[in-house]
């Protein structure tokens, strides 16, 4: 077991290095001389000043050395400074991370709450009207652009009915009463959560359906029935437990991707999260922030995959002797 863990950890290190190189290269490919960003773009620039700034930024060194120095800073947590706000990138990201995390978790939770029952019932009543309808809705959910649904929801609930807010995490000024604040939060969360979770809701429902269908055909289920267990027990104690494992893994693996920021959803609802930060940074060509988010997101996904692999090995002994 420990050997497997060590093996996987060792495998990840070159991939992390590769990601850092990729991020670095992507950032340097950006047009424009980074040194100029520190100067007033309007005024003419004396070549001496420019050379000084370049030297202070370490831009006169050969590129591999720049990479090493950059990597050293990153490993200490220094992701550079935003071109626009001069605030450290790490600070900008972490200030907004909680909002993105909350939204991502809410969406994942909602998707699970919807997908598991729907998928289960579809599998149990295969080919029924429910199954047919849920398959149709699953396809719709995967195919419809979620921002389109977002726009339509805003039209209905904000434009026409006026019962839900369109912007941000809470109203300004926030209501003072704790209960009112909770309701207010709920109102702010519900549309973005639905929009963000729509696709996963649909595909996980399909996934759960096929997973359960496969499990039900297994011999041990037949044994359980033959033993005389009632159908509910068979379902809950045996079938569901095994069918849920792959789905839960899938759900867990999708979370770090959401931490990279739900760019589109956060943009529509002006959600103060990492995604909106990234989109703004792209508009204003604020490359340090973009690079920081890319790096963080990719590293998180890799680490989450590693964690999932290790957990899987702990749970399923067959995996260890790969």
């Amino acid at each position, binding site marked *: 077991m420990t050997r497997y863990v060590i093996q996987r950890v060792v495998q990840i290190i070159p991939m992390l290095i590769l990601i850092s190189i990729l991020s670095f290269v*992507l950032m340097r490919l950006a047009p424009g001389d980074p040194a100029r960003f520190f100067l007033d773009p309007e005024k003419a620039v004396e070549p001496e000043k420019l050379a000084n700034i370049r030297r202070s930024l370490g831009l006169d060194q050969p590129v591999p050395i720049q990479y090493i120095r950059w990597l050293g800073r990153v490993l200490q947590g220094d992701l550079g400074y935003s071109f626009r706000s001069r605030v450290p990138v790490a600070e900008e990201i972490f200030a907004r991370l909680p909002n993105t995390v909350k939204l991502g978790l809410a969406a994942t939770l909602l998707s699970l709450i919807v997908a598991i029952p729907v998928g289960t019932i579809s599998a149990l009543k295969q080919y029924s009207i429910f199954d047919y309808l849920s398959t149709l809705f699953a396809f719709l959910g995967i*195919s419809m*652009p979620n921002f*389109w649904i977002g*726009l339509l929801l805003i039209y209905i609930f904000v434009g026409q009915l006026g019962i839900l807010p369109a912007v941000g995490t809470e109203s300004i000024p926030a209501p003072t009463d704790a209960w009112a604040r909770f309701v207010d939060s709920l109102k702010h969360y519900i549309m973005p959560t639905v929009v963000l979770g729509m696709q996963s809701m649909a595909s996980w429902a399909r996934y759960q359906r096929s997973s359960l269908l496969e499990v039900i055909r297994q011999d041990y289920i037949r044994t359980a029935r033959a033993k005389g267990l009632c159908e509910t027990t068979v379902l809950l104690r045996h079938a569901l437990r095994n069918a849920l494992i792959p789905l839960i893994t899938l759900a867990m693996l999708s979370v770090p991707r959401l931490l990279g920021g739900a760019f*589109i959803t956060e*943009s529509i609802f002006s959600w103060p999260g990492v995604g909106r930060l990234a989109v703004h940074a*792209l508009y204003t060509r604020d490359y340090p922030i973009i690079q920081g988010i890319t790096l963080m997101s990719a590293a998180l996904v890799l680490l989450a995959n590693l964690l999932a692999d290790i957990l899987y090995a702990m749970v399923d002994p067959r995996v260890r002797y790969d």
Partner: protein
Amino acid sequence: MTITDTKTKGQVAPLNKAKGESQWLLIWRNFRQHKLAILGSVILLVLFAMAIFAPVLAPYDPDEMDIKYSRGAPQPPTIEHPFGTDEFGRDYMSRTIYGAQISLSVGFVSVGISLVLGILAGVLAGYFGGHIDSTLMRIVDVLLSLPSLLVIMMVNSYLEPSIFNTMLAIGLFSWMGVARLVRGQFLSIREEEFVLAARCIGVGPVRMILRHLLPSSMAVLTVAATIGIASAILTESGLSFLGFGIQPPTSSWGSMLQSAQTFMRTSWWISFFPGLCIALAVLSFNFVGDGLRDSLDPKLRHR
């Protein structure tokens, strides 16, 4: 010698081929039984017709503005403008019809690019195996962990905004799935008897790949391509929606949705029609892909 015949009523087409019946006909027969796939194909035909015959179908010129009519705000649907107009007075139905051209072509070309890259990578990894395989797969894993939308937007902001650059950017970051598929196919076919037989008679690598290994992957690749087009259309519309894909005044459905943002609370038709088209296109491609997958797999029985 007759091939054993597994005629079962209403299910998979019988396996015994009458003389002259090609494999494609069998696949077609299977496909025909998938109602959803047929529906998808019909919708796709309509959308294609829309794109190809746009100059004939569109009642107005999509770029023709009529500010006097619109007075700065989008106008609701009327008999003259069945889909309404946007804030510049441009007929929305015409814009939607012309948008089909852009959105569909971006979908196809992006998938084309990703197929080329993916097949190349998958063939190299699957055929040669060993170190080449593990290196390539590590690269694939790393690329898959990048937040694709963000990176595509980044790349797009470096290049000049053009339709082709958008196609390129999308294609550059979607080849990984294809590579994995091709590699998986190669790995599973390599030990088959017909491959070993070909190797025995001395077939070289190029011929082996082109004539023996790749054709067996065609089925999987076709399905992947179809679903890939659906995904590419969605990605393009997301990109254009955020402003990093197709730029106005060229209208793809996604960029129309982007301009819709200002008026989304008051004018439902601005968001509704382009999004509906995107949804229909993606849905149809998904249906067709699903139907293809079921009909190409000889083991699957359609109810």
